[in-house]
């Protein structure tokens, strides 16, 4: 299925960009990927997302959309095959609630744990563990492979970065929180998620991610502004 004049501005390592790659590929939508250099942003990016100047940006028929969760909603509403969100309002609210939770609590705690040291880092790690405990409870409670049920959906796509990127946040950041014994259901989810063909075939190589995170660490907190 072709998306007439569809461009995705992103980077090959950006966890937010991959959410959009996965959603588009799941629906079999053709698009042009435009690789951005976040330290030398293109005029197209600055024009398309003047407020945040970040990736990903989806440009459909010349009209830009920013913010990964907003883009995911747009994709699901525009291409109705292989839906990533349920039609039921309660289930949609559930997916949105946990997506917000991951993007706020888990992500912000990860930034703390990665960039800070000593007691501040320990606080970040503690927050991650708390967030992970909630996610563990949710996926264990579902008794299904994925947050979306039998197939991956909106929430799996949003949580997905934890399955692949997070290990480098830990490794380069110098902390460890993921534990298959403490979070067995989440661990199963991770393994199942990475086996989904669309995901498996669309992940940045380990070495690339390690290198990118090492670069972020050197930049310090300024990296968070440039990245994504």
């Amino acid at each position: 299925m072709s998306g007439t004049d569809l461009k995705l501005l992103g980077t090959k390592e950006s966890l937010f960009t991959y959410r959009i790659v996965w959603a588009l590929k799941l629906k079999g939508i053709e698009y042009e990927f435009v690789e951005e250099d976040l330290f030398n942003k293109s005029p197209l990016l600055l024009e398309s997302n003047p407020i945040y100047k970040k990736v990903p940006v989806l440009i459909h028929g010349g009209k830009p959309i920013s913010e990964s969760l907003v883009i995911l909603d747009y994709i699901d509403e525009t291409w109705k095959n292989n839906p990533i969100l349920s039609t039921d309002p309660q289930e949609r609210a559930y997916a949105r609630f946990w997506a917000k939770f991951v993007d706020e609590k888990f992500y912000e705690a990860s930034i703390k744990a990665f960039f800070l040291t000593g007691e501040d880092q320990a606080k970040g790690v503690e927050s991650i563990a708390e967030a992970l405990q909630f996610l563990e409870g949710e996926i264990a409670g579902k008794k299904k492979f994925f947050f979306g049920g039998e197939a991956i959906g909106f929430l799996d796509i949003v949580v997905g970065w934890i399955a692949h990127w997070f290990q480098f946040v830990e490794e380069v950041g110098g902390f460890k929180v993921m534990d298959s014994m403490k979070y067995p259901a989440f661990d199963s989810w991770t393994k199942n998620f990475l086996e989904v063909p669309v995901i498996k075939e669309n992940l940045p190589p380990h070495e690339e991610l390690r290198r990118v995170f090492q670069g972020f660490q050197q930049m310090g907190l300024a990296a968070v502004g440039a990245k994504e």
Partner: protein
Amino acid sequence: MEEVKLHGFWPSPFSYRVIWALKLKGVKYDYIEEDFPNKSKLLLQYNPVHKKIPVLVHRGKPVAESLIILEYIEETWPENPLLPKDAYERAMARFWIKYGDEKGGPTFYSFFLSVGEEQEKAIKETMEVLKVLEEKGLGDKKFVGGDTIGLVDITFGWLPRWFECMEEVVGVKLLQPTTFPRLHAWMENFKEVPVIKENLPDHEKLLAHFKRIRESSVADTMK
């Protein structure tokens, strides 16, 4: 018979977002005032993750986080739509809802609670946010939603009353009609919408409440 309950807190703009949406759609509901800081057992049960209001309970099932509640209300009661039909327009609306919430909230709170150098920084950031709303967020119509208010207007809805009270308590007026004519006009129009006009916290009561909060925050900073 539909059972809709809203757990809220009278000074909270987030509570009011939900009240406005329910009233605009003519949805009947029971309002439960949470007595902060003594959160009810029910609230903790319904929102164990954040332990915050507002929480909407529909047919016994809770929905938390005001913006998520707004989408839920829009999807469950589609009459009097508060989001555009067109997918791209909806994406634009969602973008501004997110911006208004993410940039507006923390920045305005910082302006309200801080002193000295931190406050100067917060004032600068608040002015930037207001500028973005003025120049890009409002669009060309009477309301962001068009001739009638929509979810974006509702999300910006704490500029009148709440932000105005904050400015009064802090003693700094940032949102002047001369510097932000469009925002000012939008605020005046918004306050006149019957559902909004009839559902705002009392000005004096909110002022007193905000005074207490600021005094306590400033005292903490001095410690």
